[in-house]
Each structure stands twice: as structure tokens, then as C-alpha cells.
């Protein structure tokens, strides 16, 4: 690895100040599971690394007036163990569990996962299907960006060099919304997604009529994407087996997968149809159990 200096931030304000001082030649390190793996193979690197791994005020999972707030430094392991998240969004727990292996999940953070901007990121689809909002801190203050506008392309986000991703907010109206996530990889552990899909939907269990269906796909476009046409097909209609299968086919037509050494574009497209349908089925099942539990 090329030489660099490290400064350690004490809290989020300090982190923002350090970034302002050292941007644009600085890089943030959180869990380091993406950054360090990258820097070892890179011919150029940052002059300064701002270590935010000790920023305790970005490690909380709390319900606020705005919704469910997850600090950027919450690790995948912490998500899996959070009683609030297990209760409200089992899909997020499942997504966290599919990431790497125990060692990576103990270090890797939710914020770091999103900032990598890779289309295969496993926390992306569920959060996008829940219309999450990214909260960003900088010397200019605090701004919020809807998840759907956060990614610009592979490994590109709207974050500027002096900006810190501070928290991920699931808006109040979506708290407890039935959501399901599925990842298809070549192995169970230590495998990136060939395709992933998440669906969230409110369902009137008596009439089967669904509202606000949200479908999001990973690893089949330059960024994690929504599938708006598939969503429109379902909105306000009964969530029947046919409707869910058709939504899957429409989602497949909205995906823009590539062929690479892991799978062909055609195979990925087939997977989108199947995973979208199953994600909808999973969300529907959850809607039914929630009703029974209530």
C-alpha cells in the first residue's frame, strides 16, 4: 500500500471539520473492508485518511420523529442484532446477513456499503424499496438526498469530497411496511449478487388490493434501480399470483444487465423475473402474518 497519513475523528462534527481541512486529497475510512482492499491494488491513493470508525454518534439505531434512523457507522452485524430492525424490517436483517462473512460484517458499515456505489451492494435494494433518505453532513450543514437520487453510476454517488454520509433514514410512513429481499449468488457465503431484488408493499389482506408497491433491483444496471413500470402494474390492484408473475416479467424488461464471467445478461434477466416475483410473494406473506399478529 502507498504511504498515507491518518487522522482519527472523535465525533461527527470533528469528522466534518477534518474532511473540510483535508479534502480533496482525503479519503474516509469506516470499516475499511472496501477501501483497504482497493488501496492495496491502486497505484495512486489519498494523502490523508480520515478515520471515522470511532465516531460514536453515528452508531445509533433509533426511532425519531422522521422515521427509523440508522447511523452510517452501524455495522452489518449490528443491523442483524438490532431488536428494532428485526421487528420492523426483517428484510434488512436478511440483506445484512448475505454480505460477505462474519469478519466482513463485523467491520463493514451500512454507510460504507452505500458510498461504494457498486450496483451489487446488498443493502441497496431493500433501502431503496423503503424510499430511504440519505442524510449528509458538510461544512455547509445538513442535506437530505432520496436514495433514488444518491447513485450516479458505478462507484459514483452525489457525495462531494468534503461530505460525510451521516445517517440513513427510513421515512415514518414506511415504518413496518412489509418488505422482502432476495439475493442470488453463486454460493451462500462470500459471493457477490448475480441479481438481487427487494419489494415493499402495503396489502389489504381482505381484498388483496395493494398500494405503494416498490420494487428495487441490484446488480442489473449501472446502479441499484427501481422498477417503476412493474410497480405501476401492481398499484391499486389485487396482488394475485398472476399479477406478481407479470410484475416480475416487466421488471426484467426494465433491467439492463451485463454479461460477465459470473453470468450472462440473459440469465440475469431471467433471475430478475423470478426474484421480483418471489420478493413480492415474501412481502405479501409478511403482510398476512403481521395482520395475524396484530
Amino acid at each position, binding site marked *: 500500500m502507498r504511504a*498515507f*497519513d*491518518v487522522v482519527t475523528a472523535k465525533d461527527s462534527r470533528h469528522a466534518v471539520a477534518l474532511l473540510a481541512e483535508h479534502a480533496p486529497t482525503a479519503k474516509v475510512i469506516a470499516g475499511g473492508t472496501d477501501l483497504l482492499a482497493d488501496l492495496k491494488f491502486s497505484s495512486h491513493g489519498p494523502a490523508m485518511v480520515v*478515520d471515522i470508525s470511532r465516531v460514536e454518534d453515528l452508531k445509533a439505531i433509533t426511532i425519531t420523529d422522521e422515521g427509523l434512523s440508522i447511523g452510517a457507522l452501524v455495522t452489518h452485524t449490528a443491523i442483524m442484532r438490532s431488536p428494532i430492525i428485526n421487528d420492523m424490517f426483517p428484510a434488512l436483517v436478511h440483506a445484512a446477513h448475505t454480505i460477505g462473512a462474519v469478519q466482513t460484517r463485523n467491520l463493514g458499515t451500512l454507510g460504507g456499503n452505500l458510498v461504494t456505489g457498486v450496483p451489487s451492494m446488498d443493502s441497496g435494494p431493500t433501502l431503496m424499496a423503503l424510499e430511504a433518505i440519505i442524510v449528509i453532513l458538510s461544512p455547509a450543514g445538513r442535506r437530505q438526498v432520496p436514495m433514488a437520487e444518491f447513485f450516479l453510476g458505478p462507484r459514483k454517488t452525489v457525495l462531494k469530497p468534503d461530505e460525510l454520509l451521516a445517517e440513513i433514514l427510513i421515512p415514518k410512513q414506511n415504518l413496518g411496511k412489509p418488505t422482502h429481499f432476495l439475493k442470488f449468488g453463486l454460493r451462500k457465503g462470500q459471493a457477490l449478487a448475480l441479481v438481487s431484488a427487494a419489494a415493499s408493499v402495503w396489502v389489504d389482506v381482505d381484498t388483496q388490493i395493494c398500494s405503494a408497491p416498490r420494487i428495487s433491483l441490484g446488480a442489473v444496471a449501472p446502479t441499484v434501480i427501481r422498477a417503476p413500470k412493474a410497480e405501476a402494474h401492481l398499484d391499486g390492484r389485487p396482488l394475485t399470483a398472476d399479477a406478481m408473475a407479470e410484475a416480475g416479467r416487466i421488471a426484467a424488461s426494465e433491467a439492463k444487465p451485463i454479461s460477465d464471467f459470473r453470468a450472462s445478461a440473459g440469465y440475469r434477466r431471467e433471475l430478475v423475473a423470478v426474484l421480483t416475483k418471489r420478493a413480492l410473494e415474501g412481502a405479501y406473506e409478511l403482510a398476512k402474518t403481521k395482520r395475524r399478529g396484530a
Partner: protein
Amino acid sequence: MAKVTITVNGEARTVSVPPETTLLKLLREHLNLTGAKLGCDVGDCGACTVIVNGKSVNSCLMLASQVDGFDVLTIEGLATTDQLHPLQTAFEEKGSLQCGFCGPGVIMSAKALLDEEPDPSVERIRDALAGNLCRCTGYSKMIEAVQAVANSVNSHPSVKSA
């Protein structure tokens, strides 16, 4: 240079290292603890697994300065001069390792699991070892060894704190 003080295997150590030094490099090259192995160096193989503040991590993916003030346990910290750790004994008895390169990492992952969950299911053991690649054994005998320790801990609670 970055000045780093850590408690390794119960002993406080202070070293000055270049800031880009990883925890793995600190252990192997500055503290002469070569039990944790350098395999892939990018977090895939798990040969560098150590326990930091109770959690298993890839030491190749942490900067030394990120563990300043923390408690680090490596494979060298398990056995005493006259007694192996129960996991090491079980791995030996079951013939769980062949070439042995992955061993220190696998055993540290298993230790982190058993410390939190003394009686894990096979599914949980598999999950805990998923980040440790072994190309010799096929994993079955490792899983049996972890199960054997789990069972003995449950019948003799006193071995638990080793």
C-alpha cells in the same frame, strides 16, 4: 509514524508504525506474532482472522491505528505452555486440518462464535466459518471439532473461560 498501544493476548504493547500499516502487518512484522497468516490480503480467505474486542475480524482490512487501545486476541493467546485450548485439542483429535495454513483463522472464528454462543447449531457453525477458506479438508471435521467443544463446554462449564 503512528504510535499504537494494544493489549495483545493479555499483554500491553506499544509500537510506532507507518500510518498505512495494517493490523496484520503490525502483528506479524512488528510484534513477531506470525500465527495470523497473510493469504489473499483482501478479506476473502480469512487466514488473518483475529479477535478484536470480542469480535472476529480480518486483520488485513484494519489499520493498526484503528485498534489503538483495543484488546486483540491471536492464535498465540489460546494455548498455555502446558495446555492446548480445547478447540486446538479437538482439531487435533478430529484431524480437522491438513496443511494447516487456514487453521489459526478457522480456530479464531470458532472461538469468537463459542464465546458468544456456547451451544451453536451446525448451521451457525457453518455461518461462522464461511469467511475462512480451506482447500484441503472439506470442512466437515472442523465442524465436528467445534461441536465437540460445544458439547464438552456444556457438560463442564469450567472450560468455558479458557
